[in-house]
C-alpha cells in the first residue's frame, strides 16, 4: 500500500478538475469495486458469523478440529518454504540482473518477465508433465543411473512447493531488482576506494540496502502463496490439502457454506492484517516493470 506521504504521486499542479467531474469520473471505479469486490467479501464474512445463527462456532470448527488445524499449519509451512526457496533462487538473479548490461540484461529480463505474463495453468501443467512417472525428471534420473525405479513426484507436497516457487519467483525477483537498482553505483565504488573487498562491499553495503526489496518480495510471495489454489489443486495430494483446496472441497462437495466462509474469513483477515502491518514496504507499482 502506498503511504499518504506519496500522495503527491496523484497530484499535479495546473488547473484542477471540478469536484463534480472528479466524482463522476471516479464513480464507475468505486461502483464496480463496491459491487464486485467489497460486497461479496463482506457477505462471506457476515455468513461466517451469522449462519446458521449468530455464532463463532464456524471459526471454532476451524481451530478445534485437528484435521483443519493441520491444513492451516500445512498452508503456513508451504508458504514459508515457497518464500524461502524464492529468496534463495531469486536474490542472485535480481543481483545479476541489476549489474547486467545490453543483451545479457535483456535476456535475463525476458526470462523473468515472460513467465509473469504466461498462464499459471500452463506453468502448472508443465510441472505435472515433468513430475510424471515417465516424465523428464524421472527419465533423466534413470538414464543417469541414479535410480532404477521412478520416484513418486506428482501429487506430493514437494511438487507443490517447487511449482509454486516457480510460479511466484518473478514476484520475488522484481522488487529485489527494484531495490538494488535504486542503490547508487557510487556507494559500491566508495566502499572499494576505502579498501573493502567485493564480498565485504556486498555484505555491508549492497545487502543491507537491498533488504526493503527482499522484505517486499517475500511478503508478496508469502501472501500470494497462502491463498494459492491452482497449483495445490492440480499437483498436491488430496490427503495433504491447503486452505484453498479445503475451501473448494467444502463448497463443491460438502456444500458447507458457513464453514467455507469461516475458512475464507481466516485466510482473508490474516492476509489483510499482514498487508496492513507491512503496508509501507509493499510496493505493488513496481510489478508493472516501472521502477518509479
Amino acid at each position, binding site marked *: 500500500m502506498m503511504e499518504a506521504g506519496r500522495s503527491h504521486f496523484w*497530484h499535479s499542479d495546473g488547473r484542477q478538475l471540478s469536484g463534480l467531474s472528479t466524482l463522476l469520473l471516479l464513480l464507475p471505479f468505486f461502483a464496480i469495486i463496491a459491487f464486485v469486490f467489497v460486497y461479496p467479501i463482506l457477505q462471506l464474512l457476515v455468513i461466517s458469523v451469522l449462519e446458521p445463527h449468530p455464532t463463532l462456532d464456524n471459526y471454532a470448527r476451524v481451530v478445534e478440529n485437528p484435521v483443519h488445524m493441520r491444513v492451516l499449519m500445512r498452508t503456513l509451512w508451504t508458504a514459508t518454504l515457497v518464500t524461502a526457496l524464492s529468496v534463495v533462487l531469486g536474490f*542472485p538473479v535480481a543481483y545479476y540482473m541489476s549489474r547486467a548490461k545490453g543483451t545479457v540484461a535483456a535476456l535475463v529480463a525476458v526470462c523473468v518477465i515472460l513467465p509473469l505474463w504466461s498462464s499459471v*495453468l500452463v506453468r502448472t501443467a508443465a510441472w505435472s*508433465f515433468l513430475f510424471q512417472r515417465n516424465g*523428464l525428471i524421472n527419465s533423466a534420473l534413470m538414464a543417469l543411473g541414479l535410480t532404477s525405479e521412478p520416484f513418486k513426484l506428482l501429487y506430493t507436497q514437494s511438487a507443490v512447493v517447487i511449482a509454486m516457487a516457480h510460479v511466484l519467483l518473478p514476484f520475488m525477483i522484481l522488487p529485489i531488482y527494484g531495490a538494488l537498482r535504486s542503490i547508487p553505483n557510487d556507494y559500491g565504488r566508495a566502499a572499494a576506494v576505502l579498501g573493502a573487498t567485493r564480498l565485504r562491499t556486498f555484505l555491508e553495503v549492497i545487502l543491507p540496502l537491498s533488504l526493503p526489496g527482499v522484505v517486499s518480495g517475500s511478503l508478496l510471495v508469502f501472501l500470494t502463496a497462502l491463498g494459492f489454489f491452482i497449483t495445490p489443486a492440480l499437483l498436491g495430494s488430496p490427503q495433504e490439502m491447503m486452505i*484453498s483446496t479445503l475451501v473448494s472441497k467444502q463448497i463443491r462437495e460438502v456444500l458447507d*457454506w458457513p464453514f467455507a466462509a469461516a475458512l475464507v474469513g481466516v485466510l482473508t483477515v490474516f492476509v489483510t492484517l499482514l498487508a496492513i502491518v507491512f503496508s509501507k514496504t509493499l510496493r505493488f507499482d513496481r510489478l508493472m516493470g*516501472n521502477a518509479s
Partner: protein
Amino acid sequence: MKPPTDRGSLALGAYVYAVLAFIIVPLVIVIPMSFSQNDYLAFPPSGFTLKWYAEYFDSRQWRAATWLSVQVALLTALFASVIGTAATYAMIRGRSRLVTVFQILLIGPIIVPHIALAVGLYLFFQTIGLSGTIPGFVLAHTVLTLPFVVFTMAAALGKVDANLEAAAMSCGASRFQAFRLVTLPLVLPSLASSALFAFIISFDEPVVSFFLSGVRQKTLPRRMFEDIEQNLTPVIPAIATLLIVLSILILLGAHVLRSRSVTR
C-alpha cells in the same frame, strides 16, 4: 568497468543461469511435447505431428471455451482501461479527498486471495443470476485487472504536464476536448498496453473463472483445469504452446508501445 573474471563471479553466473533454466525450461518443454506422436505424455517426445493442434481446433468444446475467453478478455480490456483511466485521471487532476480510500480499494484485489473473491462472487452471482454469464466474468475480471491499468496509467498521466491542458483550455477548449486532443494522444501507447495486459490477465485468469464457470459456460482456463485434473491429454501441450505464443505477442506489443511512448 572490467568484466569480472574471478571465481566468485563465475560461480554467481553459473548459479544465475541454472535458476534461469529452472524458470524457462518448464515453459519451453511443452513446445516439443506438443508435436510428439506419443498418445501418452512420455518423455522424450518422439516423431512429429500436428494432430494435437488439429484436435484442439476441431473440438467444439475447446473452441467454445476459447471463444468465451476471447469475448470476456476483450470486454474486460475495454472496461478496465476506460474505468481505470477515468479514475486515474480524476485522482491526478482532481483534488479529491478520496486518495486514501482509492488506494486501499485499488490494492484490495491484489492483496485479498483470489480464492476468497472467487467464493464470494460465486455465492453473490448465483443469487443475482450472473454466474456463468459473460457479464459476470467481465465484472469479476475487470476488478482483478483495474489495479494494473491504474498503475500503468498513473505513471503515464503523471508525466503529462498539466499546463498543456490548461493552455488548451485557455484557448477555449473544454476540459473534455483538452483531454481528448492533448492528453489522450500523449498517453495512448500506455492506454493500449494497459488494455493488452488486462486482456491477457483476463484470458489466463484461472481461479475466479473456475468458480464462476457453469456446466455449459466454461472459460479456456477452466476447461484446461478439468483436462489436467482428470486425464492430462496431449492436447494440453498444444494449447500451452499457443498460450505461450500469445503471451510473447502481448509482451512484444507492450514493448513496442513502450518504446513509442512520448511520455516515457
